């Protein structure tokens, strides 16, 4: 049986992972196909007529019967500041995932390095790392990010900058997990054997430990990305994001700030809400699925 079939058969057993990856594929298709049809400026203020309800044929006010112009389609409507919500959904999903991925990858990489170093070298370094993780995990991350982002000022924050700020607080979780995993794996018989065979330290790390840690790294990445997306949305919704960019968090900020619902513009709120909910459900399902993959004991309990 081919490898592809094996994966398919595993996905049939692991429903959460299958549905989660399904939503991921949907989002990838949606953003990549969508970006072919959507003009970049349509996602920015005044890129489209303001406050248009979802419609297939919109005619401008000066030409209500569309006699001289082609009717335009705004299937998701436009917001009160003239953004095409379809463009916002397409670009916002991508921008939000970009922040999440950037911060998540940096967090997991830093966490892996620190976790390994902490578990392998021990001593003062280990104590220092453990204290830092303990202290930083106690502090509510969103509030620290609020202090940082608010003193940087909104003009200087770009999408990448946002990712980097969030990455500052994304490494503690992975560090802790990797450290404890390495500590327990280090004593396993196969590592002992490798050591007795005269394998070098880096060799053991690369050839014995990393492959066994991969499921944990995967689960850690999903967790970091979830945390980063959550943090970026939170900061943006508080008004500390790149307020001109059509990211999902910023859109929610404008929905709250401009009373979209009170003005009856339900589609303005519905688009970011549904997209955000889908993103979080997707991340949750993937992480549950990966947990099952990494932790066969969970599998047995089903």
């Amino acid at each position, binding site marked *: 049986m081919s490898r592809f079939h094996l994966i398919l058969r595993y996905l049939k057993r692991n429903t959460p992972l299958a549905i989660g990856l399904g939503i991921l594929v949907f989002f990838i298709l949606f953003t990549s196909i969508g970006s072919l049809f959507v003009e970049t400026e349509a996602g920015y203020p005044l890129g489209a007529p303001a406050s248009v309800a979802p419609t297939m044929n919109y005619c401008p006010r000066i030409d209500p019967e569309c006699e001289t112009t082609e009717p335009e389609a705004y299937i998701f409507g436009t917001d009160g500041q003239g953004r095409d919500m379809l463009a916002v959904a397409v670009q916002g999903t991508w921008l939000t995932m970009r922040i999440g991925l950037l911060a998540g990858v940096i967090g997991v990489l830093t966490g892996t390095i620190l976790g390994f170093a902490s578990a392998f070298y021990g001593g003062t370094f280990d104590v220092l790392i453990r204290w830092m993780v303990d202290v930083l995990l106690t502090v509510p991350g969103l509030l620290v990010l609020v202090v940082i982002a608010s*003193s*940087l000022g909104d003009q200087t924050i770009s999408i990448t900058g946002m990712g980097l700020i969030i990455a500052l607080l994304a490494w503690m979780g992975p560090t802790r997990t990797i450290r404890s995993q390495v500590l327990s794996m280090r004593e396993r018989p196969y590592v002992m054997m490798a050591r007795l065979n005269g394998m070098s330290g880096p060799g053991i790390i690369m050839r014995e430990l990393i492959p066994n840690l991969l499921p944990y790294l995967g689960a850690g990445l999903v967790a970091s990305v979830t945390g980063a997306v959550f943090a970026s949305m939170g900061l943006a919704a508080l*008004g500390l994001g790149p307020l001109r960019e059509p990211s999902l968090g910023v859109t929610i900020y404008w929905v*709250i700030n401009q009373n979209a619902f009170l003005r009856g513009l339900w589609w303005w709120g519905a688009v970011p809400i549904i997209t*955000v909910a889908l993103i979080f459900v997707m991340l949750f399902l993937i992480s549950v699925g990966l947990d099952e993959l990494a932790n066969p004991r969970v599998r047995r309990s089903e």
Partner: protein
Amino acid sequence: MRYSFKFVARRFVLLLVIIWSAATLNFFIPKLTPRNPLREKLLQEATRSGYIPPGFEEMVASYEERFGLNAPLWQQYATYMSDMFSGNLGVSIANFPKTVAQLVGEALPWTIGLLLTTTIIAFVLGTFLGALMSWPKAPSAFRYLVPGVLIFGAVPAYVIALTLIYFVAFQWKLLPIGGGYGIGTVPDMSVTFALEVFKHSLLPALALVLSGLGGWTIGMRGMMVTVQGEDYMTFGEAKGLKSWRLFYKYGVRNAMLPQVTGLALALSFIVSGSVLVELVFGYPGIGTLLARSINQLDYFVIYGIVFVIVVAIGITLFVMDMIYPLLDPRIQYERD
């Protein structure tokens, strides 16, 4: 004594380090950035009249002197630290005569009231649901609840809150759309006022409970599944114990412990509340105060809120760590 002096000492030092780092962070991060909050705020006020009055820079300088901002950095740091530890968080720029401590003190009861209630409700409901979901003899309807509850748990509370506002408050007009009490109501100790506060807190509470439920349910379900595999459960069943007795006294009771630990952790985070849910509803708690201060560039309030919350969480966690070994005899720190 279940814990050694060394453990208490280590834990106490950790608490001090947490408070110290929060204060230091608050002091240095703004200094590292090119922003000058005082100047920005004065500029914002000055340009309101349409032009920058002559002598603006002198005004900034005199304010800086008044706030001690022209002293050497180490001296500023020392003053700041002694202020922080004596509870002097400074004054608000936007609501000038009010101190930061006053503003935070006004907002704190709202946040604690809302979050304490919803955390406990979510805990009780979630634990109960989770236990029933994994109980073979429970009505099968509970098993169909699983996906719904879990999906609500994955979605952030403020997203649920926005949806609830649209349907319940705006479309069906069942509950007020936001705020802590009606506009024009004067807070007093009457029953009508209490009822109004209750009505206004229902929607935020619903959003928080719905999003908090999932975590408790998953945790309890997992533990119940483990417990059901234990020998004493099989033995109890073989002995012919009544089903409810097996469920409550043997199953739920033993599966509860990790949940209680989780509750202790969750309770220590209630001060930080759910900033965004409060913001969405305009609920007069810490979160709304924070959002307003960010909009008004009221830096001292922002830093004050962060500091108060960090200290509160640090102290609660410290107390929890001290109480916990007394509750669960199996936990032993620092075996000697």
